């Protein structure tokens, strides 16, 4: 059994950080309780013997799907269309937050 204390508030904050999520108030505590419960619920999978079973990466038998590396003119967005959903643009470019401090 996985100990309940494994997924504490600190652990949740780490997951949130890795997922680029900001948690508010006591959300980390709340999620921690649920996380432990979920891991417990799905722990029944350990009962099944999978020692000689391969992972199912594909379920309908498709293999090596390729396409021609050519430009599809019907899928090209104009510059204006491409940036039309952005909240912040500068001279036709997307604006992102600074990375360096």
């Amino acid at each position, binding site marked *: 059994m996985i100990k309940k204390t494994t997924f504490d508030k600190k652990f949740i904050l780490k*997951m949130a950080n890795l997922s680029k999520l900001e948690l508010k108030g006591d*959300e980390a505590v709340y999620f921690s309780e649920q*996380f432990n419960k979920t891991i417990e*619920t799905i722990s029944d999978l350990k009962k099944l013997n999978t020692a000689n079973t*391969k992972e*199912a990466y594909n*379920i*309908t038998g498709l293999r090596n*799907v390729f*396409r021609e590396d050519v430009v599809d003119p019907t899928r090209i967005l104009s510059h204006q269309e491409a940036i039309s959903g952005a909240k912040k643009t500068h001279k036709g470019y997307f604006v992102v937050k600074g990375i360096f401090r």
Partner: protein
Amino acid sequence: MKNNLTLTESIKLLGKKEISSVELTKYLLQNIEKRDKQINAFVTVNDKALDEAKLKDNKQTKGRLHGIPLVFKDNFLTKRLRTTASSKLLNNYIPQYNATVVQKLLDEGAFILGKTNMDAWAHGSSTETSDYGSTKNPWNLKHLPGGSSGGSAAAVVSDMAIASIGSETAGSIRQPAAWSGCVGLKPTYGRVSRYGVIAMGSSLDSPGPLTKTVEDAAVLLEILAGKDKYDSTTSNIDVQKYTDSIGKSIDSLKIGIAEDYLLDDMRSDVKDIVVSSAKVFGELGAKVEYVKTMDPHYAIGVYTIIQRSEVSSNLSRFDGVRFGNDRSYFGEEAKRRIMLGTFALSEGYTEKYYKNALKIRTLYINDFNSIFEKYDLIIGPTSPGPAKKVGATKGQDMFGEMEDILIEPSTIAGLPGISVPCGFVDGLPIGLNIFGTHFSESKIIKAADAFEKATDWHNRKPVVGSK
């Protein structure tokens, strides 16, 4: 105008010019005006719908859906029409292109009446995670419509739509169809393109129709199915003429009743309905017997791990830079799923969780393969019970995953299935899940249509707002 037009009837009447597209659209818009304040099935109603109908009336085309207004779950990208996935993160998102599914239907002469409510990002089986408020069940407004395609189901059942399009990762078409009382068809994974559908679980997601009859679902699937060069997971296998399966005999079919899907804690009246439904197939000439399957309970864990892993990856693209708001707009459910998925895919835990889930996925696939050597189809309840009450998801952090236990085994194996109305308890509909092996949609449609024609459940209509 008849107040419950099916897609097939609408196509016929439009073709004979007995009704116009404008009349049809006005009638639906009136119903939306009257009923949607209570039901809340729509996130966006297309304010140009009537103009589009006029254009259709003025210029006849050979499209199979000429003049038909359709509604789409709000996770299908619609060019120049707001698409939110029911999340405020995408509150103002206007797509620059159409999903393949949308484009194929428009190419056949249909147009968009509106976009329907869903669980935000399709995370859930209730619509309660929607940032635009939950949809209500047309049979009883105190109950949920199911989800995530709950708006699509409720719109069809309350005659605010002729037919609708939804998507299923595990249950999101069939469970709302069951809870709301319509037909929901989930095709084989890769039968219908995912291009332009806001992704949830990319190895699971399957778009499909929610309709008033099985024939209507066959009409739509015939248009939607097929290889799409924009989605490399779509199959090259020939698309069958699904409407040929309508009105056919099922006496050659061997059908298994999934014994393990009649769960110990399931209400006995729901079990009785499923057993009576199985008898209908027997009376129609099919060979019906109980069949042992792998325990569906393990599918909850497998589905939870695979789906949340894929969610964490898919939702990483929402950075608020190119479109949409920033990540602070994710709701509780999305955050919960993203974090668990991030964990299941993280260094040191992948083997234990993600890879192990994929191995058990193989066990389910193998189990179904051996069953389908002997049986054409499997039947069972779509959902363990009727629609739950509004508010039922509160504090239930695995609500969707738990409610869809009877669909998850087949969906993690990529199998196609349909839910058809098969009875009522407490005045709420119950759905029968009929599923088969990969690409067996024709057989599923044949059986579902025969069942529908032998029963009367699909003809029952709710009086919206009476409860």
